[in-house]
């Protein structure tokens, strides 16, 4: 997913950001499905949507749902204008799948909170204005889901330090973020103190069910399809299977969006979409790489080979980010009453 602040601003000018945000805060009040349709087109076209992505998908809806009136007025217009970019502060060095064990801690002080700790694997941290972070405000890691809260952290505040981490493809899209005595004014606490776990769980349903959980590898499929049309080969069956999966996943994703739009928090269904979706996204480059090299006499387009190899390299991350496969299946099992 490419990053272009200019593209994001142009999206906003078209009225294509903040579609589920109320008009009085600069949004379109057009609903989740208009957003779904637009996002799907953008992803299928490989548009550079990364800058506004997190703010538009989950930070904006989160602030609209849990934020105070003053907070909505402060943050939402910038999100809708494509000028405020957000990142997600969840994972820490010792809190990955076990998210409830976060140790970053905000201590109460006069007029606000003093934050110390560290986040990691934060996508776009160096290029975002704000982070919505899950931190401990009371108790200890042993208290698990109790005592966690969410704050909007201004990343330009004193005491915030960000270091990029290079990924295996050589890109630096994620970072480590350090907090040393960072002052968080009282009115940057989102929702209720201590309700952070419940809020983050609701937020993750947005993160896990969208079309991006299906379409990460779509550019490889489209490239392969173009080559198959130009150079007929006998891969109809493999192509058809990909389509059967893609069509089914899209229906699943839409059904979860319908529940989100109805104000529900379909946590289990979102986990199902994410696990099935990322499995598909991971299988696609594996299957296509094999098909591209099935006949050594044929030379696939160089750019298609490059994209396929790049996506195959990045694909293992799909079932890590936003909740690992094992965590998701555990959540489904809990939803079924097994634990």
């Amino acid at each position, binding site marked *: 997913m490419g990053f272009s602040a200019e593209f994001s601003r142009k999206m906003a000018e078209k009225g294509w950001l903040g579609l589920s945000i109320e008009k009085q805060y600069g949004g379109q009040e057009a*609903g*989740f*499905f*208009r957003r*779904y*349709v637009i996002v*799907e087109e953008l992803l*299928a076209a490989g548009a550079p949507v990364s800058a506004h992505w997190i703010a538009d998908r989950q930070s904006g809806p989160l602030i609209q749902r849990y934020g105070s009136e003053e907070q909505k007025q402060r943050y939402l217009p910038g999100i809708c204008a494509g000028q405020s970019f957000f990142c997600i502060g969840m994972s820490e060095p010792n809190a990955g799948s076990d998210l409830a064990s976060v140790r970053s801690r905000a201590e109460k002080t006069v007029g606000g909170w003093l934050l110390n700790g560290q986040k990691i694997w934060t996508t776009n941290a160096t290029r975002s204005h704000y982070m919505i972070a899950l931190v401990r405000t009371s108790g200890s890691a042993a208290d698990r889901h109790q005592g966690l809260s969410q704050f909007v952290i201004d990343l330009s505040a004193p005491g915030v330090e960000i270091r990029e981490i290079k990924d295996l493809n050589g890109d630096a899209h994620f970072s480590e973020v350090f907090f040393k005595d960072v002052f968080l004014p009282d009115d940057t606490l989102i929702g209720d103190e201590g309700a952070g776990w419940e809020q983050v769980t609701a937020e993750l349903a947005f993160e896990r069910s969208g079309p991006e959980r299906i*379409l990460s590898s*779509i550019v490889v*499929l*489209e490239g392969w*399809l173009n080559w*198959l*049309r130009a150079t007929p080969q006998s*891969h*109809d*069956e*493999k*192509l*058809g*299977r*990909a*389509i*059967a*999966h*893609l*069509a*089914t*996943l*899209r*229906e*699943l994703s*839409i*059904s979860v969006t*319908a529940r989100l*739009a*109805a104000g529900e928090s379909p946590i289990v*269904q979102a986990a*199902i979409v994410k*696990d*099935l979706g990322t499995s598909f996204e991971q299988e696609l480059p594996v299957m296509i790489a094999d098909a591209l090299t099935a006949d050594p006499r044929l030379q696939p387009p160089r750019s298609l080979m490059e994209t396929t190899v790049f996506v195959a390299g990045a694909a293992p991350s799909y079932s890590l980010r936003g909740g690992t496969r*094992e965590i*998701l*299946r*555990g*959540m*489904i*099992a809990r*939803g*079924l*009453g*097994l*634990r």
Partner: protein
Amino acid sequence: MLEESAKQLFATHCKAEHVRKAQQTGEIETLLNELVHAGFVDALVPEADGGAGLSLIDLAPVLFQAGAHAAPLPLGDTIVARTEPAVPSGSGAVAIAPGPLETTAKGRMLSNVPFGRVASYVIARSPADWHLLPLEEATVLASPSSGILGADLLWPHDAPNGLTVERQDWFRIGALMRAVEMAGAMGRLLEMTVAYAMEREQFGRAIAKQQAIQQQIGEMAEHCYAARISAELGLAGFTDPSASAIAKSRVSEAAVRVGAIAHAVHGAIGITEEHDLQLYTRRLVEARIAYGGESYWNRELGQALLNTTDSSMEFVLSVSARKKMPIDL
């Protein structure tokens, strides 16, 4: 409402004991009569002609319930067949022959017709058009290769041809209905498997508490959910061959994993004749390969896409276009 009344009907008249009896004797009269009385069998027939005037997707809850109770009859196939003028009212169950009518030394024969043992009529290709053939004069030959309720059907050489039917895409309808049936059965298998895992104890506690079991059942639930939604896509896009292809391919693929996990969790007891698990898993094995397995429908789907100039996303959007997006939400 439709779902509740269907659920009640099947819970009363399609218990495991009824399914077992139908498998032994081919007897389905009570269940079929109840389905007719409830209005399900003529649900697609226009109201002016005495039916309910519904569309196929409206009936999805009824068809899933049929699958969830291993109903021993081709309900969906019969419901569609009833819209054909050639099919007389009160005709009983109508099966679809996957292969053409062949002339053999013994007579005219249809091989491996699913539900051939319980049907009153069969719709078959002979040789170019599709015809409706009554089973009254046919010899019904059950054989292991025909499956639990299937049969080879044999007519004398001089038997009449039967009336021509209007629709010409019965093979695809047979595939779609098996997909819907399987999706219903998978929902039931998930319930049974969850219940069993919570009650069965090993190592001093319910096996449901073992992470290895939780992970498997989590995966099973994913396939069940995917199967159900792709079967719905097939029903919603009833007139679109690609929607049926997606449903049959995706549900069949899911059925393999769902059946395997259901058996893995149940252990040896699930392999017994006495346990109800086999009423569903054996039907999955059969329905998956009836009217074309995954390879066939995937190839059809791949060719359909290659014959357009659509991108894969455009193609998928065109198939789901029949399912209206709830844009008001």
